[in-house]
């Protein structure tokens, strides 16, 4: 039963997207269309919560076989605890973003907007759940296409179109290369399934296959770094994310960039657990080093550039670059602690970044400007948004009771184990980032109001923001003060896919063979 | 018997088409401008494509061991007919556009169309 639910979860938003034109043509009311989408996403959230609950209840990961075909023949979804948590996070945040959009998106093109958001959520959920390398490509493209279109949503603003085009070009270049990697995978190893691939990798260790393995790793890494906006490929991100409507900025910065991290998790942890025993080990080490280097460089870049921004959305976008750098550093460790830190950091960052963007959206709508100076003092005017803004900024900055602190702490521990210099670099970087966050917080909350604020009626949006804020606070306090919870959720999820990986893979392999 | 005849007629047409095609290609290279090359292209389309397609259709009919020979014959015959419809219209449309947009420089003996348009 549960595996059928897993299969349905990403398909449900997609199906809703297919039906939206009919719903629109029948009703032609904005609230009906939006409400329909919200209901679908609420169902998706409930279902993914059930999946996450079940994933923690049982020891082994869930395997869903599309069409009933076993692994190398058909497509399988492999949902372990990591993926289940990400799925829950994704559907929850998208639900709140859509709720927020009901009061934010009021122009005529809303049916297109809803379709694109639904498609995007289908894509991210698919990326989280899939266990097939080629299906991962398709899901990345689903996410990508809807993201390009959403960035171009303000069609009469040149900035939006130009940066959306930049994003589209660089993104589709990346996915073309990933497709090439899939061709190589199939031609050298004869399989496209993640777990099957991890077994077959060790069967061939001649020079040609080593070369191919390295090439696959490089191409995949390059693609995921584009998708995540990490250092050599970060240049599109600070243009694209601010150009979109604010809920979409939240969606892009909070969730879409996660796809690269999830992809790396699947490549570095699940697909290559086996390669330590062989000469492939050196390639793995190189890949891990490359990931960490890219991560640290983009952390430094993001933190430095954050401090000189005047546009508030650009500032937050650079903060995304920095945080994704940290995530890459965490995931590159290839250890239990690294994965644990990554998982918690992903949750924290997604929640906080989405909340930050959404609350900034209220201020921007009120003041009609995106310049930091014009926003000064707006936080006091809108209490709910101000609270959400403060909490999320402090979370991102890593102030103790909030979840950001624990995330940074875990990451520090993981990096300390890997290399002390990196740990220090990370602390220094987050200190530089802290300056920018504090500036932002000070200006928005305590600055003297210099511009007239329009009255905006966004009750639903503010309610959504409050829900998100409460979630952040709960997550922060529970995980920080009750270590057992941390251990049993984050720890066990990381344990499952690092130390107990052999049980994991064995179980999955057995489920494949079993009809 | 009839099959062998069909086969050899088809083969002859196929080879003949190849020769004409080659001639048309040489014409395409040698002719000085677009309006003259159009005529070489016609050779390539009619005796260089339609004829060998009919030849292939006959050849396919003449090989009993070919699986699905009627499908091959039918499809190639249909292709030939379609080419017979498409090729002249394509040439005509291109010539029309080239003349209308005056994008091709040439020195004709007489250009009745241009004279009439100037009137």
């Amino acid at each position, binding site marked *: 039963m549960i595996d059928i639910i897993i299969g349905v979860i990403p398909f449900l938003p997609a199906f809703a997207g297919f039906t939206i034109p009919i719903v629109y043509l029948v009703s032609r009311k904005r609230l009906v269309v939006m409400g329909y989408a919200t209901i679908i996403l609420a169902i998706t959230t409930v279902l993914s919560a059930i999946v996450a609950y079940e994933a923690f209840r049982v020891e082994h990961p869930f395997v869903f076989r599309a069409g009933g075909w076993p692994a190398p023949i058909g497509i399988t979804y492999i949902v372990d605890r990591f993926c289940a948590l990400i799925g829950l996070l994704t559907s929850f945040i998208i639900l709140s973003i859509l709720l927020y959009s009901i009061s934010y998106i009021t122009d005529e093109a809303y049916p297109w907007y809803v379709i694109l958001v639904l498609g995007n959520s289908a894509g991210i959920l698919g990326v989280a759940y899939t266990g097939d390398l080629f299906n991962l490509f398709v899901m990345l493209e689903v996410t990508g296409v809807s993201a390009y279109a959403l960035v171009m949503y303000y069609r009469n603003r040149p900035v939006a179109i130009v940066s959306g085009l930049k994003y589209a070009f660089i993104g589709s270049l990346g996915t073309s290369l990933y497709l090439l990697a899939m061709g190589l995978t199939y031609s050298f190893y004869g399989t496209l399934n993640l777990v099957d691939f991890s077994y077959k990798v060790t069967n061939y260790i001649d020079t040609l296959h080593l070369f191919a393995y390295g090439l696959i790793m490089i191409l995949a890494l390059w693609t995921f770094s584009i998708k995540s906006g990490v250092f050599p490929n970060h240049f599109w991100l600070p243009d694209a994310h601010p150009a979109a409507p604010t809920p979409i900025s939240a969606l892009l910065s909070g969730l879409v960039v996660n796809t690269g991290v999830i992809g790396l998790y699947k490549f570095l942890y699940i697909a290559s657990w086996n390669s330590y025993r062989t000469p492939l080990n050196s390639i793995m080490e190189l890949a891990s080093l490359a990931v960490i280097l890219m991560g640290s460089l983009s952390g430094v870049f993001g933190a430095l550039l954050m401090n000189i921004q005047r546009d508030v959305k650009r500032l937050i976008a650079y903060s995304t670059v920095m945080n994704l750098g940290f995530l890459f550093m965490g995931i590159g460790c290839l250890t239990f602690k690294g994965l644990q830190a990554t998982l918690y950091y992903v949750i924290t960052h997604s929640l906080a970044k989405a909340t930050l963007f959404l609350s900034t959206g209220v201020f921007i709508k009120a003041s009609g400007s995106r310049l930091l100076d014009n926003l000064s003092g707006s936080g006091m005017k809108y209490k709910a948004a101000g609270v959400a803004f403060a909490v999320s900024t402090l979370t991102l900055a890593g102030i103790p009771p909030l979840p950001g602190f624990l995330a940074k702490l875990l990451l520090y521990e993981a990096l300390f184990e890997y290399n002390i210099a990196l740990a220090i670099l990370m602390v220094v970087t987050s200190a530089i980032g802290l300056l920018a966050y504090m500036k932002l917080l000070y200006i928005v909350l305590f600055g003297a109001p210099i511009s007239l604020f329009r009255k905006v009626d966004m009750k639903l949006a503010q309610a959504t923001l409050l829900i998100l804020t409460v979630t952040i606070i709960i997550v922060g306090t529970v995980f920080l003060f009750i270590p057992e919870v941390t251990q049993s959720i984050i720890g066990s999820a990381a344990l499952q896919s690092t130390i107990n990986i052999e049980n994991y893979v064995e179980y999955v392999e057995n489920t494949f063979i079993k009809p | 018997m009839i099959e062998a005849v069909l086969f050899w007629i088809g083969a002859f047409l196929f080879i003949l088409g190849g020769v004409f*095609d080659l001639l048309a290609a*040489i014409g395409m290279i040698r002719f000085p401008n677009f309006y003259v090359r159009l005529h070489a292209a016609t050779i*390539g389309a009619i005796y260089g494509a339609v004829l060998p397609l009919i030849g*292939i259709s006959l050849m*396919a009919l003449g090989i009993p061991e070919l699986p*699905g020979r009627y499908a*091959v014959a039918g499809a190639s015959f249909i292709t030939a007919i379609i080419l017979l419809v498409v090729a002249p219209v394509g*040439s005509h449309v*291109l010539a029309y556009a080239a003349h209308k947009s005056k994008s091709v420089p040439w020195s004709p003996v007489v250009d009745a169309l241009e004279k009439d348009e100037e009137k």
Partner: protein
Amino acid sequence: MELIVLIGAPLYIVAIVLYSIRLLKGPTIPDMVLAADCLSYDLAVFLMALTLYYKTPFLVAPSIMLALWVYLLDVYVSKYLVSKEVGK
């Protein structure tokens, strides 16, 4: 049957190469499109011959499409040359 195709194929390939030279050199757009036309008419024949060579009926459909699609190219280029707006 293989023999016939074997004799015919070099003729067609040489013709195709010559057409391609015209397509590459073509001083004006109509020249190039005309060369592309001839190229694909030729290839329609050539792919059909390949069907005989491979002894399978399933390779026939592409040649018909090649012949039809190049007409689309013709029409679009001509329309562009005649009036700048294609949809007019």
